[in-house]
C-alpha cells in the first residue's frame, strides 16, 4: 500500500500507538491503539476507511492556499488538485472532527471562484473554519469572502471557538495592509485577542490560525506580520501553542519556547523558498510529474493527556 502519513501513524511512541500491518490473502488489517484499547481497521479497496479518534483524542485537518481561479502554468487544474487534497483527507487514518482553511481560498476574490471553492469543499463532508488570505480580500474589504465563509459574529472577521478541549483563535492579518509593511493585525484585533485569552487556563492547548506567518520568515519578500510580536506575547504563558499559517505554500517550522509556528503546503501550486536570491515570490512552475509531490494537506492530532499535538503533513503524491 502506498506510503502516506497513515503509514507512520501520528505520534509514534508518544501516542502509545502500535502499528502492525498484517497482510492476509483477503486484504490487510491495521492495528492501532488509542486510550489503551487496540482497534483493528480493515484495509479495503483504495481508500483506508478512517476510524474515529480514541476517546479523549481530538483530530482535525488543515488545508491552505487553494487559489481557486488560478489557471497559470504552475498548475492548470487547481480545482483538480483541491479534489485530490480532499481525497487525501478522506484517507487520513483518523477521521478529523473538522477542517481549518488558512486562507487564499480564491485567487482573485471573484464570486464564481468563491462559489466553486464552496462547492468543491463541500465534498470534504466536514465542518470548515476559514480565515482569509490576501487573495480573498482584494475587493470591498473582503466582503464577498466574509459573506460566504466568515464567522457568524464579530467585527473584523476574527473569532475564536473551542473544540475537543482546544481553544482556537482565528486571526485576520491580510486587511488594512500598510505601504511598505507586512501582514497586519491592528490594535482592535490585538485587544480582542488579549481579552479572549485572558481568562484561559495556561494548560489549555491553543491553536492560532493566521494566513500570513506570525514570525518574520523573509522581510524582503513581505513575509511576516508587522505586529505579531504583540500577539505572541499573549500566547507565551500557555503550555501548548500551535500557530498554523499559510501563504508561502511550503512547510517551514519555528519553535519559540512553548509556541510552535508551522506554515503549510498549498493545494494549488508551489513557491520558491522565501528570500531565495533571484527568485520570484509568485507561483513556481516545476516539472509536471513533481507538482503533486509539492502540494499537500495536514492532520493535527491532540492525544488525551498530552498537551502538544502531533502534526502530520501529507503530500498529494509521494
Amino acid at each position, binding site marked *: 500500500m502506498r506510503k502516506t502519513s497513515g503509514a507512520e501513524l501520528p505520534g509514534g511512541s508518544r501516542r502509545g500507538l502500535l502499528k502492525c500491518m498484517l497482510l492476509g490473502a483477503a486484504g490487510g488489517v491495521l492495528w492501532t491503539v488509542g486510550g489503551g484499547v487496540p482497534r483493528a481497521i480493515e484495509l479495503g479497496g483504495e481508500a483506508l476507511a478512517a476510524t474515529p479518534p480514541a476517546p479523549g483524542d481530538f483530530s482535525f485537518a488543515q488545508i491552505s492556499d487553494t487559489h481557486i481561479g488560478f489557471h497559470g502554468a504552475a498548475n492548470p487544474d487547481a480545482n483538480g488538485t483541491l479534489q485530490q487534497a480532499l481525497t487525501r483527507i478522506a484517507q487520513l487514518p483518523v477521521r478529523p472532527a473538522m477542517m481549518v482553511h488558512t486562507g487564499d481560498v480564491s485567487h482573485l476574490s471573484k464570486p464564481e471562484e468563491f462559489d466553486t471553492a464552496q462547492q468543491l469543499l463541500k465534498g470534504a463532508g466536514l465542518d470548515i473554519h476559514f480565515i482569509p488570505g*490576501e487573495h480573498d480580500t482584494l475587493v470591498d474589504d473582503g466582503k464577498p469572502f466574509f459573506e460566504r465563509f466568515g464567522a457568524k459574529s464579530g467585527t473584523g472577521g476574527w473569532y475564536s471557538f473551542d473544540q475537543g478541549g482546544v481553544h482556537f483563535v482565528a486571526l485576520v492579518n491580510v486587511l488594512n495592509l500598510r*505601504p511598505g509593511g507586512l501582514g497586519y493585525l491592528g490594535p482592535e484585533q490585538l485587544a480582542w485577542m488579549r481579552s479572549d485569552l485572558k481568562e484561559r487556563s495556561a494548560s489549555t492547548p491553543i491553536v492560532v490560525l493566521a494566513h500570513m506567518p506570525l514570525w518574520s520568515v523573509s522581510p*524582503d519578500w513581505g513575509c511576516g506580520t508587522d505586529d505579531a510580536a504583540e500577539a505572541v506575547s499573549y500566547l507565551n504563558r500557555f503550555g501548548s501553542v500551535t500557530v498554523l499559517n499559510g501563504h508561502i505554500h511550503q512547510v517551514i517550522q519555528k519553535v519559540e519556547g512553548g509556541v510552535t509556528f508551522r506554515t503549510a503546503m498549498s493545494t494549488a501550486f508551489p513557491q520558491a523558498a522565501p528570500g531565495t536570491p533571484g527568485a520570484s515570490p509568485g507561483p513556481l512552475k516545476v516539472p509536471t510529474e513533481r507538482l503533486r509531490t509539492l502540494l499537500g494537506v495536514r492532520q493535527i492530532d491532540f492525544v488525551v493527556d498530552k498537551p502538544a499535538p502531533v502534526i502530520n503533513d501529507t503530500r498529494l503524491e509521494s
Partner: protein
Amino acid sequence: MSKFPCAIGGASLALWTAAALLLWPLADAGRPAAAMDHAMMGHDASAPTAKTAAAAANEVVIDDFRFGPAALTVAVGTKVTWVNDDSDPHTVTSEADPKLLKSPPLDTGESFAFTFDKPGTYRYFCSIHPHMQGVVIVQ
C-alpha cells in the same frame, strides 16, 4: 523601503539551481535553503529570473513583485499606464488619502491607467503585497 532580491541575470542560473526552490518537507527557520532535503532543480527554466522590463514611455511594468521603474517622472497631463506582467495579481493603490490611485486587482496581462492633472509626488503601493512600492512625480 522594500528591498527586493536583486536581479542577477543569466550568470545566476547556477546559483538559482543550487539555492532556489523548496524546502521539503519540514525545515527550521534559519537553516539555509541549500541544506534542505529535496531541493528542486529548476532546469526546466520556467522559474522566472529577473527581467529588465523595457517599459514604454509613461508606462510602469509590474513584474517579479516590483514596479519598473519604481520612480517615474512625467509632465502634468500625462496618462500613465501600469501593466501587470507578473504571475500574481497586483494593485496600484495610493499610499495616502485621498486614494487617487485605486486600481482593481490586475491579473496577469491586465493594465490600469491614470491621467495626472496636477503636479505633485504620488506614492503608491500594491495593496496585496504592501512591500511593493513606487512613486510617480508629476512636474
